[in-house]
Each structure stands twice: as C-alpha cells, then as structure tokens.
C-alpha cells in the first residue's frame, strides 16, 4: 500500500508537467490559431500562401519530429550559442506551433460556415468589419466549433506524453523509470490520470454546449 501511494505521488508529479504543457499550449495556440486562420482566408495572396504552406507542413509531419526539430535545430544552426533554456520550453514551442495549425483549420471551417447574409445584415446596419466579427459572427463560430475543438483539445491531453522523446519529465517518463527498475504496473496505471483529466474536460465541454443551446442556427 505504501508503494502504491509512493508511485501515485511520483506519477502525479510527472502529470503536473503534462498539465503545464497542456495549459500553456492551449492558452497560446487558441489565439495564435485564430490569427493563422485569418491569414489563410486573406485575400492578400502571399500571406494566404504562407499560412496555408505553414499549415500543410505542420499537419503533414509528425509531432514527434517537430519536437526534435525545435529542440535540436536551433543549437545546430547557431553553433550551440542558442538553445532553449530547458526541454520543457522547447516542448511548449513545438506543441503551440502544432496545435495552432490544427486550431486554425477548425476556426476557418467555423468562420466560413457562417452565412454571408449575417455579414451583409451587419453592413447595411452600418456596422464595421470588426464589429460584425466580434458582435455577430464570433459567438456563432464558437457554437459551431465546440465539437471539433473538444476533440482536438482532448487529443492534446494525451499528446503531451510525446514530450518525453526530448526527455521532458512527464508522467510516462516517470512510469518508464519504474519499469526499468522492474515495476511494470505504474506504466498501465498512468492511463487512469489521462482518463480522469479527459473525463473532466468532456463534462466541461458538455456544459459549454448546453450553455450555448439557448438559440439555434
């Protein structure tokens, strides 16, 4: 029993790293994704091309590879004079970039699904473009993208464990250390942490969906 608590505490310590990576990624990638989505919908062709190419590259390569690139390429390019202060910062940068690309496509889908008539109604009522976006379109977009967003955010929870590839001290890294010492069950036990976290998120998303259920359309 004492061993169980010991393992639990150790894993929990690792899991705080997963949570930190999750939180920072979400906080930064949500707004960054919106900016990228504006870029990929821009009528200014070079900007649109840059944004769409960015999304293609990020979605077209494994997150694991992107972690390596962010961690190893800067010191290689600068002869070692620049590297990320710690492994966690490198992981955060890679995750933010990766998730911003995915989020941007979800935003784009949501924004493009709003009927043109909503914008036109705003225009003929003398509203500015930004007033129309923030006062009329945004909430409708949010309502529409909650299901795909929740999917992506739940995936993010589990993806955080990939950070161990650059030796971030996250939960699976701790569990693997136990395995090396001959204790296998903590590896499977980590699943419980992820399940509980994702369960809580699912409840949160259901709550938000219900909050936005007061209107249709």
């Amino acid at each position, binding site marked *: 029993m004492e061993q169980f608590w010991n393992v639990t505490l150790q894993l929990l310590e690792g899991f705080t790293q997963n949570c930190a990576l999750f939180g920072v990624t979400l906080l930064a990638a949500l707004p960054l994704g919106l900016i990228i989505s504006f870029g990929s919908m821009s009528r200014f062709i070079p900007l649109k091309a840059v944004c769409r190419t960015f999304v293609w590259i990020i979605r077209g390569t494994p997150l694991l590879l992107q972690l390596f690139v962010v961690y190893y390429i800067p010191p290689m390019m600068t002869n070692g004079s620049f590297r990320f202060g710690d492994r966690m910062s490198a992981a955060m940068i890679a995750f933010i970039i990766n998730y911003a690309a995915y989020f941007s496509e979800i935003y784009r889908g949501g924004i493009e699904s709003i009927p043109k008539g909503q914008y036109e109604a705003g225009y*003929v009522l003398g509203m500015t473009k930004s007033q129309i976006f923030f006062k009329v379109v945004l909430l409708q977009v949010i309502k529409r993208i909650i299901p795909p967003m929740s999917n992506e955010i739940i995936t993010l929870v589990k993806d955080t464990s990939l950070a161990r590839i650059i030796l971030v001290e996250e939960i699976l890294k701790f569990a693997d250390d136990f395995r090396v010492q001959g204790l296998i069950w903590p590896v499977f036990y980590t699943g419980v942490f992820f399940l509980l976290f994702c369960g809580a998120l699912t409840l949160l998303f259901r709550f938000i969906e219900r909050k936005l259920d007061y209107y249709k*359309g």
Partner: protein
Amino acid sequence: MAFLEVNNIKKSFGRTEVLTDISFSLEKGEVLAIIGSSGSGKTTLLRCINFLEAPQKGIISVGGEVLFDGDDPSKKKEKEIRKNRLHFGMVFQQFNLFPQYTVFENLILAPQLMAKEQIKANGEYMGAKTYKEAQEKIKAEADRLLKKVGLTEKKDSYPCDLSGGQQQRVAIARALALNPDVLCFDEPTSALDPELTGEVLNVIKGLKSTDSTMIVVTHEIGFARDVADKIIFMDNGVIEEEGTPQEVIENPKSRRTREFLSRFNQFGD
C-alpha cells in the same frame, strides 16, 4: 431634383453584364415596386443601391447629396461607403436576423454601437449627450417599432422561436431602427409559406402611410398594384417599362411586360 436619383447604373460580374444603364428617380414618401423575372437584375440593382455591390458606373444621390459616383474613387472608400449606407435600410429575403440575440437585442445592437461611436466622436447621438441617455432613446424607439410591427409580446424571444413571417417583421423593425431615408426590400415574402406572406405585406403597407420612401423588389403583383406609386418592370438588366401601376400592370405597352404579367394571370393573381 427628385429625393432619390439613380443614374446610369452599370454593373457586370466578370464578362456578364447584369445591369445596363439603369436610371430612375423617386420622390420622398413614394413607394417603388420593381418586378421582373428571375435573373433580370432586380436584386443586383437593390444591392447596388445598398452598396453591397459596387457598380462600375453610375451615380446615386439622396436629397441632392451624391452618395456614389462610379468615376469618383473617394466615394468607394470603406469609411465613406459605411457612412452613406445609413441612408438606406435593407430587408433581406432570408431575414438574416442575428440568431444569438433576442428580438429586442436585434433591434438595439446596431444603434447602440452607432451611439457609442458618435458620442465619442461628436459628443452627440440623435440629440442625446451621454451614452446612457442615448440608450434610453434607442430602447424606447425599439419598443415603439416592435409595437408597430405587432411583436411587442415577442420582445424577449430568440429568432429560432419565431415563424418566418414574424422573423421578417422583426427584420423590418430592425431596418427601421436606424431611421433610413429609403427602405429597401429584397423579395421580402419569397422565403415564406403562402399563408405567412399576408402579415408581412400588411406591415409594409402600414409603413406607406407613415411616409417612408420604399423600394420593394417583389413577385407579388397584386401587392405591387395596391401599394406602389410607381412600378418598374426589369428584363435582362434594363428597365423595360416604367410608370404607375395602372400604366404598367393594367395597360402594359411592352410585349415583354405583357408576357411576364400573363404568366401571373394564368394563376389568377
């Protein structure tokens, strides 16, 4: 000079010419009905008047003030267009209410934003010096308009809970809330079940007595005959015939007008 002057409007999409040299005028308080078959350019004309489309050529003026001139780039700036749009109100075929706001909020949203902006810039909005004072005026006006379209009891409902006819009446009230000089209707009853068109047409009829200047694109020939002071029949991007309802509907001169109207008469309209 007439109150609304539309001169030599020309609009094409790519190589397709949709409007060829359209000119007409309207006096204050008059109602103009634009009829014609699908694809004749009626809706495009209305959208040009609301600056939702930019004509390649032509001049639009209200009360002697030139609001659009195809040859004057300064009239095509976004800021200028936004200001000039306020001379016109628009009611769409698909209502286009904002679904996340209640009926009342739909009416007050744009005036509130306008009041905030104008009080900041000029220290005044429709005689109100503070935002709070303006807000009271805006809300009182919204209540008055809802009463006018007979939807006071639906004030706190959401658009999704209203019938199509009710939604369109809200859209009319919303367009009136900014007190436009000319109110435009783009086939306001085409998306409605037949039994719901009456309530919307009655509201529009009611507006006529309050001397609003209106342009109505419509397929309701009977309504056009009863309400309009002036009728334009459009065909292939030109005004084929123009005149009073008696002239255009009872005694059409053009063969195309006669053909168009005979199709309606077949169904007893």
